[in-house]
């Protein structure tokens, strides 16, 4: 006896296990999250339907707007600096002949470290008494400076730390894109008398656009959710100078134990992540 099944049904059967996982790990939690965001779930009062009150609470909270502003500045700076540095690193590694494996491995190391560890490393680097940065400034006669106490420099510190962890990823993405460009194009350009800058501008950059967009998208997405580095390095301070949406969510969950408000914050974060997905998705996947 033979069992016949159409290709479409067979395809569905094969993808069924993955669909179950998607449902259990993404669809169900998403709906559960939405559900909780409409509840008064503060682990103190009885749980009841609360309508839009959780959203109202966060939208009138100046801490929410401060965290949103910080997130925007943070993501823009991290993404920009990561892209700029990643471009330089990728082009340098692409040209490297001797020791390329060694240097590629070295550049990947920051990416391999847990983000909290990276935060703690930078906390030590910036320590005004025992950190190497101030050791150098004192040796140069410039005195000590407490980077993490000044809101402006604290912001720069967390941005630099985050960039340090993300540059390897961006470098890998751009490098992969560069290596997919045919060497013939570069050879032809050189024959036509193009200099390095022109080659970069008219060949490397445009033909690597999709990879770069993808890298920018991922870094933007992940940096918008950053908690670990900031938590380890500054705790969101001083006075909320480095406090992002991730910190706002963390505090409402672990400190205030307010699951309803936390869910509402998550929904807002999901919202702006979806906006990024649609914008970047359009540019990455459109036919040219």
């Amino acid at each position: 006896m033979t069992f016949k099944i159409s290709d479409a049904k067979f395809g569905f059967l094969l993808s069924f296990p993955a669909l179950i996982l998607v449902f259990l790990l993404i669809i169900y939690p998403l709906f559960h999250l939405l559900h909780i965001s409409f509840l008064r779930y503060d682990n103190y009062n009885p749980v009841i339907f609360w309508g839009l009150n959780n959203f109202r609470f966060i939208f009138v909270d100046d801490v929410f707007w401060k965290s949103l502003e910080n997130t925007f500045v943070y993501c823009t700076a991290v993404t920009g600096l990561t892209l700029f540095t990643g471009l330089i690193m990728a082009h340098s590694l692409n040209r490297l002949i001797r020791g390329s494996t060694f240097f590629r491995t070295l550049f990947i190391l920051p990416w391999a470290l847990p983000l909290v560890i990276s935060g703690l490393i930078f906390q030590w680097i910036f320590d005004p008494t025992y950190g190497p940065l101030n050791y150098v400034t004192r040796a140069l006669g410039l005195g000590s400076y407490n980077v993490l106490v000044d809101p402006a420099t604290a912001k720069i510190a967390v941005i630099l730390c985050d960039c340090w962890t993300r540059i390897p990823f961006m470098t890998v993405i751009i490098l992969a894109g560069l290596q997919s460009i045919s060497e013939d194009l570069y050879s032809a350009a050189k024959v036509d008398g193009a200099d390095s800058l022109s080659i970069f501008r008219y060949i490397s950059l445009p033909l690597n656009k999709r990879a770069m967009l993808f890298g920018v998208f991922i870094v933007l997405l992940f940096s918008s959710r950053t908690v670990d580095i900031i938590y380890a390095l500054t705790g969101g301070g001083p006075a909320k100078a480095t406090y992002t949406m991730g910190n706002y969510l963390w505090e409402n969950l672990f400190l205030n134990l307010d699951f309803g408000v936390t869910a509402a914050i998550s929904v807002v974060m999901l919202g702006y992540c979806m906006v990024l997905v649609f914008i970047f998705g359009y540019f990455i996947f459109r036919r040219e």
Partner: protein
Amino acid sequence: MDWDKPKPAAERILADEWIPPEGWEEAVKGVDKLVITNCGGMKGDIATLVNFKIFTKRTGIPIEYVVYYETDDQNMVYLASKDPNIHIIQISRNATSFTHFAAASWLQKVNEIWTPSIRKLYFPEELKGITYEGDFYGEPGVGFPSLIYYRPSWLKAAGVDVPTNYEELYKAAKKIREWCKTNIGEDVYGFSFGMQSGTVWIDDAMRILLTPIGERFHDPDTEKFRLDTPGFKAAWDWYLRMIKEDIAPKANITQTHIQATGLFGMGKAAFSIGMASFGPRFDVDFPAVIGDWVAVAPFTSFDGVTGPYTRGSYYDYDGYYINAAIDDKHKAAAMLFLDFHRSIEAMANEVLVEGNESPLVDAYEHPNLPRLIHWDIVEEAARELGRSVPPKYTEIPYKDVRLATAKAAVMETYLPAAARAMTTISDYWTKAALGELSGEEALAKADEKIAIYGF
């Protein structure tokens, strides 16, 4: 288990060697281990490990501990997810986390082990931190009152008298700061204290000053926070002056009280306010101050500014509480541990080996407390933790000061969701310290904002 057999509970707890209650073996049959969370690294909690070992020796129940820096964040995960594998949690933010966990019904009530005859053995105020809406939820663990530490040789060299109130301390620290700059280094300060923003800022910075001067941060009748009292304003301003006038390092703004007191231990400050448990550590782990540190009780006035309440001492502790989601056998074993840990035998280790304070009155009035310490177990614990063995004190160091502090203890616990208000207050203080707002503006805005949260 029969808590009053083979002897009345009070006698069992106060015996030189703890006597477990009758029926305990049957009650805990089949319990493979107890898992307990611990706040911070165990290296600083040697007495905790010693007590775990003694409990295991007496009952045969092994204890597995898990350490976290921000324990209550992890505790929340275990409790909210009803994890049956974590049996006892140690709460570090007692004033806020305990009430919220209890309100959420995540903690096990233990009224049966806190009969009136047992409660009489403990400093009454200290039982507040394990009580919520009339029910008892755990065991106070160990207390962390704070003392004022200073360097006597520096005061002498700088020609500064030992201060007797906070205004005098400010002036003394200011003068010593100038002396330090000239004689020791630019990076040595007059005062060091952890002012990191967050809930602990209220506990560790403000209440330490307020309670001894007879002020209270929290009005128990209205459940509101009082930012408008003369004492609160004086304390708020006092800390601001320490930072703005460069008497304390600006780094204190982002440091915990442990980090900041550590600076004192490293010879970077003349005065500090720190936990009593730092005392034994200064004698062993901080070479810079060995033999040159003195501790005094927190002062009782701000140069005349006092409050309307009885002068007390700020008190906080890391209590032990039972996870309500565990099975009955493990609950019985957990209650057995709580019973052991509140005994004089366990408290002797906390008070003498680690320098913590005990909620048990007899820990200070016992005729021969050092005799209760098992130094072989202490040495074993020190080896295991890779640290030095604490000094073998023959009596409680600074006993009178510490007994007075424990007797005068004032414990405050707040309504659930107080954390939001406390963080807001400390954030505004930080803005003032950074110069973004004046002290008065920051205080006014903080008061306005916490009213929105219901405080």
